[in-house]
């Protein structure tokens, strides 16, 4: 099979890139290992922040539908339940495994890796028990598959994911006994924290999980207060009767495809870990391989869409579908949006991380 732009991942970055490229006439093929497109958008049932331009006030799930509709109109080819199990010839070909257990090689002129991020683990005694799972995993189960992982939940981590999933657990009919964080301050936005506090969910900062217990599955957990040195304060332990523990301690970019293709990767804590280096056009150190979204730095869906746009425009230009001047103008627009999105105090880290990443690209 042949295409001009192959995109791995149909989340906000991949879809936005596909739309920009397909608009100019590029033949676009998207591969996604999930049975449904949209990446994490379809489990985001809350209204998104941002400006009008970034579809603010619209629920993630509806943004997903909108982007897909546009892709359909532009004849973007999407293969679902299809895993890119290998990457060949400097990104000029992908090994695909379809859901019906057939394999295929996809040759492509340009490649965009928009494979997103993966939830961070947190190891504590009992963390391998059934009933301990990712907060994102919980979101997938309840918002996509309409099944709760359990009825009484402890949320570990108070970043936006932990806070939002706590709220959504209540919407789905479960109880959240507490959301805890080892740091003295809540990680996520105040509005998300306030939302769950007024529902009666306690937020316990400077708290850690000591262990999960239960024979075959989680029956409870022991949490404890920590001092400034992060060590447990003696006799501050508390037993909670719960059947589910959600781990919400951040995300890491899923950079393995880029790494195996030979793209230079680097560790940037502000972006969540190892990520492929890229330039202002979202191109990696290998010509013709682009990245966009969480795979090159964990941020928001709104930034992922703008990065996706830039990569789609850059790919279209290098394929000869866009004049340089036109492409630069379009990219500049998206770059300005990115700057605005990264201007606030909550984006200081990712802004810094992105600057480091691009700087390292130019140095290498």
């Amino acid at each position, binding site marked *: 099979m042949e295409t001009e732009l192959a995109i791995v991942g149909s989340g906000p970055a991949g879809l936005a890139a596909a739309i920009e490229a397909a608009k100019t006439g590029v033949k676009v093929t998207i591969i996604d*290992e999930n049975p449904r497109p949209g990446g994490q958008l379809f489990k985001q049932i809350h209204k998104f922040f941002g400006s009008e331009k970034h579809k603010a006030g619209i629920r993630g799930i509806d943004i997903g539908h909108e982007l897909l509709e546009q892709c359909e109109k532009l004849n973007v080819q999407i293969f679902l339940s299809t895993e890119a199990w290998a990457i060949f010839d400097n990104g000029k070909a992908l090994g695909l495994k379809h859901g019906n257990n057939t394999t295929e090689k996809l040759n492509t002129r340009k490649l965009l890796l928009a494979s997103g991020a*993966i939830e961070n683990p947190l190891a504590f005694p009992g963390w391998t*028990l*059934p009933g301990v799972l990712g907060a994102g*995993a919980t979101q*997938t189960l309840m*918002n996509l598959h309409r099944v709760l992982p359990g009825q009484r939940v402890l949320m570990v981590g108070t970043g936006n994911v932990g806070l939002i999933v706590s709220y959504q657990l209540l*919407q789905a009919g479960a109880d959240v006994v507490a959301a805890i964080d080892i740091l003295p301050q809540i990680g996520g936005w105040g509005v998300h924290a306030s939302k769950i506090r007024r529902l009666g969910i306690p937020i316990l900062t400077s708290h850690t999980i000591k262990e999960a217990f239960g024979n075959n599955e989680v029956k409870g957990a022991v949490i404890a207060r920590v001092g400034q040195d992060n060590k447990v304060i003696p006799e501050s332990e508390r037993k909670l009767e719960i059947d589910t523990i959600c781990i919400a301690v951040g995300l890491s970019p899923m950079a393995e495809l880029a790494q195996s293709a030979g793209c230079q990767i680097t560790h940037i804590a502000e972006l969540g870990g190892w990520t492929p280096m890229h330039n202002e056009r979202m191109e990696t150190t290998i010509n013709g391989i682009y990245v966009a979204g969480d795979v090159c730095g964990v941020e928001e869906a709104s930034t992922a869409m703008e990065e996706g746009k830039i990569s789609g425009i850059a790919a279209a230009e290098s394929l000869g579908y866009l004049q340089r001047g036109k492409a630069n103008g379009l990219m500049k627009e998206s770059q300005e949006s990115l700057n605005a999105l990264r201007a606030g105090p909550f984006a200081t880290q990712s802004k810094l991380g992105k600057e480091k990443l691009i700087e390292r690209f130019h140095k290498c």
Partner: protein
Amino acid sequence: MGLRIKNHPILGRDLRKDMVSIEVDGKVIPAYEGEPIAAALTASRIKVLRKTKKQGEPRGIFCARGICTDCVMTVNGTPNIRTCITPVEKNMKIETQEGLGKWREEPK
């Protein structure tokens, strides 16, 4: 309270109708065709999906997106199937996987 979310303030009512039967370690449970096997098992409160090879520890759903491989089970005689991303089919036979699992040829 069941673990299936029948009505939801944002997602609305669950409009899926007919359920099929699948067999888990010899026990028949209801499931929706096309939903991940692990979702159907969770709804029936089956959380232990496999036992590890060395220590025989129980494991269940962890990432729910096909990456961590902790939810692998033996499905229709084939071991190491990621149940969090494998859709339910009518009359599937699912077994808790012990260790690396055993292949069982389907009767032809």
